[in-house]
């Protein structure tokens, strides 16, 4: 009976967890941040410039360690920033501009690797670990509960004398607690 009662809240909790998943990535993403863009590179059109900024945050400065071309002070990053802006000015969509750079510099230029066969482990790995953890925890809990039910079933009910003693103890417990 107790188990059934517990099911409702579990479902609510799980639904809540599931519902929050899609919101996750953007919580920590830094969409308005900028570091090393120079004033003279910026495009006149603020919309176009905003697009350029957003794209360049996901492109790697190839000669740096773990810096996007948006953050880096390296000359190569500057060249890439300018190149990207030229493509956008020429009318490329975001995807086309990125593809243009990938064609020239390889997938290495992407800070966020594409979801493909060679990146399956990368993208699915963490969630595989989550699934395995949940399954293992579920198996563990089931076994524990089975063991506990068996233990309960094998235990003899309390005798009249034990019942009386238990009542006394509980009363004493309550009395001590109220006294404290």
């Amino acid at each position, binding site marked *: 009976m107790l*188990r059934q009662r*517990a099911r*409702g809240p579990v479902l609510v*909790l799980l639904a*809540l*967890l599931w519902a*929050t*998943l899609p*919101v*996750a*990535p*953007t*919580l*920590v*993403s*830094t*969409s*308005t*941040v900028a*570091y*090393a863009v*120079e*004033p*003279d590179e910026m495009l006149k059109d603020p919309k176009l410039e905003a697009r350029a900024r957003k794209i360049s*945050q*996901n492109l790697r400065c190839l000669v740096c*360690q*773990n*810096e*996007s071309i948006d*953050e880096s*002070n390296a000359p190569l990053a500057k060249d890439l920033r300018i190149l990207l802006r030229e493509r956008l000015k020429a009318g490329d969509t975001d995807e086309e501009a990125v593809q243009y750079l990938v064609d020239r510099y390889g997938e*290495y*230029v*992407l*800070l*966020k*690797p594409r979801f493909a066969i*060679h*990146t399956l*482990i*990368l993208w699915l*790995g*963490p*969630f595989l*670990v*989550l699934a395995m*953890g*949940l399954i293992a*925890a579920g198996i*563990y*809990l089931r076994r*524990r509960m089975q*063991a*506990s039910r068996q233990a309960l079933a094998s235990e003899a009910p309390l005798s009249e004398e034990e019942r009386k003693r*238990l009542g006394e*103890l509980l009363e*004493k*417990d309550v009395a001590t607690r109220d006294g*404290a």
Partner: protein
Amino acid sequence: MIIELGHFALVLALAVALYQTVVPLYGAHRNDARLMALAVPAAFVQFLLVSFAFAALVHAYVHSDFSVLNVWQNSHSAKPFIYKITGTWANHEGSMLLWVFILSLFTLAVAAFSGNLPLSLKARVLGVQGSISSAFLLYIVTVSSPFVRIPPDRVPLEGQGMNPLLQDPALAMHPPMLYAGYVGFSVAFAFAIAALMEGRVDSAWGRWVRPWTLAAWTFLTAGIALGSWWAYYELGWGGWWFWDPVENASFMPWLAGTALLHSAIVVEKRNALKTWTVLLALIAFSFSLIGTFLVRSGVLSSVHAFAVDPERGTFILAILAFFIGGSLFLYAIRANTLKIEGRFDPISREGALLLNNVLLSAATAAVFIGTLFPLIYEAVTGGGKITVGAPYFNLTFGTLIIPLLVILPVGPLLPWKRGNVKAVLGRLKGALVLTVLAFALSLTLLDASVRAAFGIALGVWVVAGALEEWAGRVMLFRAPLKVVFKRIASMPGSMWAMTLAHAGLGVVVLGIVMSTAWKQERITALQPGGKVQIAGFEVVYKGTRKATGPNYLAEQGLFEIYRDGRKVAEEISEKRTFLGRRGMPTTEVALMHYALGDLYIAIGDQTKMGRTVRVYFQPMIQLLWFGALLMVFGGFIGLLDRRFRVGVAERTESRLVAQPAE
């Protein structure tokens, strides 16, 4: 002469460490009390020897003894005194020595403060610690010695200088804190190995492991927070976390250590999750080892970096393989000897802590896979290069950590064994109301995006949940004030620790979300007299002047800051070029803290259009480090818990009453 004595002491320490490994472990195996008892004096002697060696190196740095190769490579006579000391560990060889020094300190602490441990367990723990010490000392003595001399006829007059980025107070304290965290997990590791050897884990084991884990976790939290604080004001980009492999290397042991901290509670209180907790202790220290080595070996940037120094690389791999592989092997063959006990429902405190562990493990896996994937990819494809950057980590780690934050306030309110979520949510009414309110207010009044509002609500939920749990515990507003004060005064340290750490985490979340969502930036080229408007401030650029520091030349940008037409501050933002061969300039940003956020000014190069000036307004970003401070403070309070202290038997009134029932 002192250097040679230090070197000699280190070699002696290696001999003592080997002795400390072999004799007590053999004694425990043979059940020979005399042999086991030798572990304590060995730990003491080893500490004396290692600390002498470390002091010898510090001495050479302080006196700018450039006849020592390591000092010449990493120091400069004009450096301020404090950086002469911290320069000791701002390089590979010195930092390894610091690592061993902290390890010997922890070993000494275990030897001194474990009077109530069973002799065999104590001998095994100290023996395992001795083995770790042996490996590191052997590494230092053979391939990574900081005590190498330059031939007398070629001793240079001046050193090459320390990396300028590292000449900073926060970064001076960053490595010792980080290493204290890494090394602290070696105690939990040693306890886990000892438990596997003995084939026994019980509640007492959980209670012994918890304070050491908490100490390590507290240091590591402080170390990571210092590192990100430093990155924030020193790197000049206004960022504070870049998902850089070096950062990830310290973050993984922290995540695993956090999981361990929580699962060890279940071992102590409920005698359950024992095999899993032992495995976590092994994993936490394994990540510490990986973190220690990989950061300085350069292997994270490319596999080829390993080939530059094959001697050290192979040695490092051997140490990693021995301790990680060896401990996991021992676990595989011995874990089933640990008796599985303890029963509980899915909806219970244990169940919540288990879910906490599953989510933290998955989040750790995301960081681990993302950090090592480029390396593995390069190795497997034979040179293929791929980048895994911040967007990947934000997506995967962010997704996995949100459910954790959602369940966080619920867990501590669930009773052991069997609970009811509805009842718990009833006790979190205030937090629920505040959360909904925070969401609605940020969406309407503060003009936040749905995502930002959700993030703020999540942070409020965690903070308010922690506070409401505390309020319920002390019966705030429900009992007379006298009772409330009595309850506050008698609340155990570990409970304070939980409340502070949980609330601190919520504050960190708030800092992250707000500073990200409402960050403002202005990047312009300014002539002297030029102005920038940002977040209600007017920043006026007055010009640039040259200045000299003790060991650097600086270009100082002068700024005046106005609010509502009134001058509120005069600030200097610098670019420094340091003496010595390391000529790259560093930025010293002008940083002003206001109630609603930080004003952050960094100067760049002089161009034809004027001086490049970057001005940021970072709303509420200080919450991030304030939250981290709360977590660290909570950790220290937790360490003061009297139940953790040696020799204090855990006897509360309710226990005494409950005992006759057995």
